[in-house]
């Protein structure tokens, strides 16, 4: 077990789950927590040099760029548009999880080899 990996995956998953709950029942606190979790996951992925890190970082940035405007739009009163953007971010979150799983499998293979 690796602490950094646990933390990164924890924040990716937290971002995904809070995003889903925000979409299901829009709530300002959940949206702020989603943004915070997503940004934390992005910061943790910065500068990583693993097999699929670039893809992981890109998907995380996409989610950030959906969620940050969603935050401002939601608190300015347009809930529908904010939920729309959050759905976009959800797609990026799901891709992040899939890439994370693939990366873990590939890293396991290369480590076994060594």
């Amino acid at each position, binding site marked *: 077990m690796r602490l950094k990996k646990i933390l990164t995956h924890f924040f990716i998953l937290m971002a995904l789950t809070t995003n889903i709950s925000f979409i299901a029942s829009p709530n300002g606190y959940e949206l702020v927590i989603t943004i915070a979790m997503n*940004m934390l996951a992005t910061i943790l992925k910065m500068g*990583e*040099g693993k097999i699929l890190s670039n893809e992981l970082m890109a998907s995380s940035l996409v989610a950030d760029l959906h969620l940050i405007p969603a*935050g401002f739009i939601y608190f300015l009163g347009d809930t529908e548009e904010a939920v729309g953007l959050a759905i976009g971010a959800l797609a990026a979150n799901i891709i992040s999880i899939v890439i994370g799983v693939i990366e873990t499998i590939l890293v396991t293979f290369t480590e076994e*080899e060594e």
Partner: protein
Amino acid sequence: MGRKLKLKIKLRRRRRRRLKDLYEEKLFEILKEFRLPLLMLHTVMTVGTLGYMILSGGDFINSLYMTVITVGTIGYGEVVRGSDTPVGRIFTTFLALGGIGVFTTAVTILVRIFFKEDVIGIIRAWRMLNAIEQLSQHYIICGFDEVTAELIRLLRKRKIEFVVIDSRKEVEKKLLEARVKYYIIEEPYKRTVLEAAGIKKARGMVVNLGDDAKNIAVIVTARLMRPSKDEFYVFSFASTPETAQKLEELGANKAIVPHRLLATRLAAYIFHTSSAYISDLFDRIAFGEETDIDILEVPVREGSPLAGKKLKDIDLRRQLGVTVIAIKRADGSLEVTVTGDTEVEPGDTLILFGRPENLRRAEKLLLRLTEAKV
């Protein structure tokens, strides 16, 4: 089991890293250092914003603003609802106590990393490597000093692109002062560095590292990558005539001994004191200092339409604005008394004299004619 092995082999078979990739990696390494201060800053901002949101009943924008002005020591006042209550003030006190320290530390670390690691320098080098990839038929100059600075001046005059490679960091300032467009601050004998300088598409290379051993290392590496002496020219400096011979055997097209070259040129002036102008003119043409006039050798291959014709029939002077001043015969002899009746034979080399643009046109046309016929 077989599939697993195949996957392993594929994972292992990654392409060889280019210099550009190494610079990219350096940038990512620096990015990694940004993580801790950003995490600190992000945590403070999240705690502050969420805290004020709870106090104000969900006012996100003002809560974020209040957090920024508190940790950023701006302190415009208690702008968010609930922050002027006792609970609000306790929260602001703790946020300010912890947050201001975190904010200043994080910003200091970020600025320090930015300047310590020379982020701008790495980005500039990376962009330059991208631009070098677009070059072709250029020259690579290994080692920068007074001689190569002068060479650069002459190459610029002829609009020949070049890339300078030097391992000394202090040279970068001089290169910028000399307005050198493309340069790489790395060891020139490395394969990745020569690849990054575009050796595969370059026309030639000048090796002037001030040390015979270093020159040899670069020449040998370059020759391994571009073996043909006719397609890739390597010119080198050597400390003695013996070393020059060795360098030529190892792959240099021509190795020059500076003191010998200077002596030869001085001797030429001494021997031709009575015809100083013409001697100087040929010198300047040969050394590329005369930009209005130039000389060019054009080989006449077997099957060339020029072969078997008399010079007056080809009439290059009227057709292309260039003059045949001599013909080097296949046996190595030089015929300098050429007339209109002189016949061109296969294996000859025409020595043409004229304006550089006319010579370039003549070279293209004559070589194309030969290739088309063959």
